[in-house]
């Protein structure tokens, strides 16, 4: 049995995998999770997984633990093998989709990664740098301003209101300006989703494969999938557990 852990900026994600089958998935908000069950011993992070109650004692007993995530460089997790995020996500996409040639677009809480996979191997990748305005956190902020749920925000793609600020924070005031102009909330939501497409398109253009595999929490955004398909003309594949892709990847390595 393998336990994969993906310590993301917003959520810690867990996947229990046995012989290629996902047995169970779990997640927990990162900060409270660290506060409650984590502590530092020297340079090492120690997670009290048993106390978290996410897994049974037998499960933890027999499992090999593989971990990835943002803390990977600053922290090492006691008793676990640590792998880089990009490798974990590619492994997850391979395991979940069975595809061998694709462009992986992973959109998480803060990060957007684009990786080119050929014949099952990672051949090149780029990451968003210095700006998180194409991430889950950005969507959460915008949903809060529009006073809609993330699910509501993610369901509108028709006739987007143009939003052009390159910065997520300035984007908020731009959005407020458009609210004042009286656009319907559906079109404002679509506009927000459209900004994500604009930000990731240049990265996707660098890696022109037929298929794009979309993972990360943002992959739950149906409007984004639709808008991306339109903008790229490529086939979009969203695996069954997009948000747990990194954790599944860890567990299947």
């Amino acid at each position, binding site marked *: 049995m393998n336990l994969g852990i993906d310590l993301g900026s917003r959520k810690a994600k867990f996947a229990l995998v046995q012989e290629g089958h996902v047995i169970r998935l779990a997640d927990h908000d990162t900060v409270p999770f660290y506060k409650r069950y984590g502590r530092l011993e020297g340079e090492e992070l120690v997670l009290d997984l048993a106390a978290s109650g996410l897994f049974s004692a037998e499960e933890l007993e027999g499992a090999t633990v593989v971990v990835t995530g943002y803390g990977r460089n600053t922290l090492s997790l006691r008793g676990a093998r640590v792998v880089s995020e990009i490798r974990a996500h590619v492994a997850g996409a391979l395991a979940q989709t069975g595809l061998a040639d694709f462009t992986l677009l992973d959109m998480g809480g803060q990060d957007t990664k684009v990786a080119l996979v050929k014949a099952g191997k990672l051949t*090149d990748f780029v*990451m968003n740098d210095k700006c998180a305005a194409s991430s889950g956190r950005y969507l959460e902020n915008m949903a809060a301003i529009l006073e809609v749920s993330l699910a509501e925000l993610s369901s509108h793609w028709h006739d987007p209101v143009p939003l052009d600020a390159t910065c997520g924070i300035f984007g908020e005031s731009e959005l407020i300006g458009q609210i004042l102009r009286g656009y319907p909330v559906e079109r404002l939501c679509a506009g927000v989703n459209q900004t994500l497409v604009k930000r990731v398109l240049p990265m996707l253009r660098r890696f022109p494969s037929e298929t794009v595999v979309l993972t990360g929490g943002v992959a739950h955004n149906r409007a984004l999938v639709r808008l991306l398909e339109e903008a790229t003309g490529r086939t979009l594949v969203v695996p069954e557990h997009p948000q747990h892709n990194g954790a599944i990847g860890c567990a299947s390595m």
Partner: protein
Amino acid sequence: MHRVGFTTTIPLEIVLAAGMTPVDLNNVFITSPHATRMIEEAEVDGFPRSICGWIKGIYAAVVECGIHELIAVTEGDCSNTRALMEVLSLKGVETIPFAYPHDRDPAGLRFEIEKLMRRFGVGWDAVKLSRERLGRIRRKVKEIDRLTWDENRVSGQENHYFQVCTSDMNSDPDRFEAEVDAFLEKARQREPFRQRLRLAYIGVPPIMTDLYPFVETLDARVVFNETQRQFAMPFDTPDLVEQYRAYTYPYDIFHRLSDILMELERRKVDAVIHYVQSFCFRQIEDMIVRQKLPLPVLTLEGDKPGPLDARTRIRIEGFLEMLA
């Protein structure tokens, strides 16, 4: 002794022939324990956020070490230098422009060199003598470079350090030569390094402080430092004008690329790190670099002095894993 500052490599031979102390302001800035504060001070004085950190660092270095005379490279380096020069002259610093002709025209370069000689009141005989003296040190640094890629006895950081210091010979050629000698002796007796991946570092020297040791923890080592090696003038050239024509840094990207391509092959490099400075015009050249180099390229961007940030570490790690 009278100190003369400069903004990037200039014909050092002239400054030394004139009996003055050369000070590469980039080195003053980046080795200062408060390099970060220096940038902030330059910004307080009015330098925009969106201007390269090296320019602000040079400005602060001039102010901090009380340089009164400055050779500013106005052509062949950065166009920001011109405005920097203007700001500094307003502060009472005497600025002396020096231009590398874009087309590497020998007559044009000779003219610039002789102009600088006149400015410092030295003739060709004195300049030749100081070129010979520097040539001796440069050959030793070239040996350090060879030990890096040929015998694997020198780390990427050491290679970087010794070559970068040749721009002003640490302001004291004799002392620097003694340091080089001591290092050579030590390095020759070492066990060779065994990292599996051989990397090239191209672009301006890194503003971050721990790039080399970090890649070495990941089973990789930099065996080619492009610009730093250029500072050390490793070519056999008949005279000073040819020496500064062979120097690639101030000329166009294609001249630089032919040198890079040759070294990548000679040094059996596996992959390239292209460093670009935030807000630098050379970022645009990354497009050409990526097209022309036959190896995987990771483009890293740095902004301010300090250790690598977590994101950059993640990217380096992913890149090196991909090669494995």
